[in-house]
């Protein structure tokens, strides 16, 4: 009757009608990392802990190393993942890996957002190539770094192959408005769930 079905027909019924195993990995954890899939297109990038490490590495010119680091550092405060508490942040980035944004430390005592410390940066061989210079952060997985958007790979200095989707600059536009979703529900729902 339907023009198409979205998924192939289900396999023949088996004797057991319920899940064989029901395991939860992270219920309640608010933010988690991007798991890499094996088949995504990869691009070449370089990653270092600092402009100096980049220069020592010898893959890029001194000027490129410094320009890449400066660009990543400039974006850091804007793109770093933000957390409601130090505990949430450290769950994702490890112990002592988090801080409060500088302006917030002055403005408020206690509360406020937490974000990870920038521990390095990545960039492409050409500033205008597919890999945007961007900050890197510690991840909760040993020996891995992650980008602001959560892509993870080994924390070794020098050339590294990364998923193409992780290479873009975390955000391209300037935020012009917030809270544009949610009002219709807030006005109308009196129940405990907005679903049903």
């Amino acid at each position, binding site marked *: 009757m339907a023009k198409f079905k979205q998924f192939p027909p289900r396999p023949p019924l088996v004797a057991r*009608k319920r899940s064989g195993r029901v395991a939860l990995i992270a219920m309640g954890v608010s933010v988690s990392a991007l798991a890499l899939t094996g088949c995504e297109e990869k691009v070449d990038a370089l990653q270092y802990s600092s402009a100096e490490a980049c220069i020592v590495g010898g893959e890029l010119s001194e000027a490129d190393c410094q320009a890449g680091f400066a660009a990543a550092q400039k974006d850091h405060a804007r793109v770093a993942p933000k957390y409601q508490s130090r505990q949430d942040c450290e769950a994702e980035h490890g112990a002592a890996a988090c801080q409060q944004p500088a302006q917030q430390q002055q403005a408020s005592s206690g509360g406020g957002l937490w974000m990870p410390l920038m521990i390095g940066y990545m960039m492409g061989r050409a500033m205008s190539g597919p890999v945007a210079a961007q900050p890197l952060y510690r991840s909760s997985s040993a020996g891995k770094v992650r980008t602001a958007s959560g892509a993870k790979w080994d924390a070794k200095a020098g050339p590294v192959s990364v998923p193409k989707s992780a290479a873009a600059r975390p955000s391209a536009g300037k935020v012009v408005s917030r809270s544009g979703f949610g009002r219709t529900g807030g006005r109308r729902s009196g129940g405990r769930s907005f679903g049903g």
Partner: protein
Amino acid sequence: MGAVLAAAASAAEPLQRIITPERYNWREIAEELGFRFHTIGGDPYWFEGAYYSFTMRQIEDDLETPSEELEEMCFAIVDKALQSEEIMTRLAIPQKHWDYIVDSWVGKAKNLYGRMDFSYNGEGPAKFLEYNADTPTSLYEAGVFQWRWLEDLQGDGRLPASADQYNSIHETLIEAFQGFGIDGLLHLTAEAASEEDVGTIEYLADCAEQAGVGTHLLPIDTIGVTDKGQFVDGAEQVISNLFKLYPWEWMFHDEFADNLATSNMRVIEPPWKAVLSNKGLLPLLWELAPGHPNLLPSFFTDAVDADVLGDNYVKKPIYSREGANIEIVENGETTMKADGPYGEEGGIVQALAALPKMDGVYPVLGNWLIASRPAGLGIREDDTPITRDDARFVPHVILD
């Protein structure tokens, strides 16, 4: 001869509700599994002082197979509605979003889940009451906590090892996320004030992670829009994939609605679900397949005289959630009316299929579809014939 005849006749068995002791430590298990909304506002939401018992025949012939068939009919309705200005208008879907919805359908944007609610007493066909196709909840308690309940009762020897449950929700969700081909992060959003909704997206995030998809949760009112028309989260990361536990009909009336079509953001459930999560689906189905054993006669209120269904019917607004604004008329008199904020967009009338009354409560059967495949059952029971948002979730088993 008589024995042969008796064996050949399909033996209809009434649905059974069995009273049983609760597990002494179920609250601890709930906390351990992240099930925090088992008690809401001091009232029990999870209730295991009873369970419903089905035969495999009832599950497969009376629920699973009909739900699959109804889903196919629903696809036919979407296809038809998206080619008809008259139907789209009647469904009160804002015209400026029609192209956005059509594009999602033509582009075969994948759907994740839905819950079809049935009235069923075990003896006749299950009657389709409505389709929560866009923002259904009670998923975690059906897929995980109900499953665990059966494991525990089997472990204690209170239910036989052969007992089963119509419930592959968890496995099927993970499979579905694997099939979505999500590139990059999946953001999941809900209204932060609802613990139940947040619990639901936490569970979905867990399933997505197990499917290898990275996730990030955020309250819906923290979403921002950039000067380039992209949606961003609180950390200004672009949202490329969004699961929203927030209905399309509200989304379409929110301030950011006009950015949806140009944002290049993939949304789950897809926009075409706006056609199905609408009570107008019910008269459209009845028109498509009048007399279908699982359908109740249904009509748009403005298309018929209200008494076309005689003295026993239910009036529902096109957009209504959690039983709000539903009115039951029996023998020509209103016997039950739920207050609420809905109704301005028009409504439908549906023949009354009274929920069975069992031990003084009224169960409604929620048949889950994951990626449009039947995947499980969750039962909620209420003290009244209208299932409201304070209904209790009660587990079930299959015993032959």
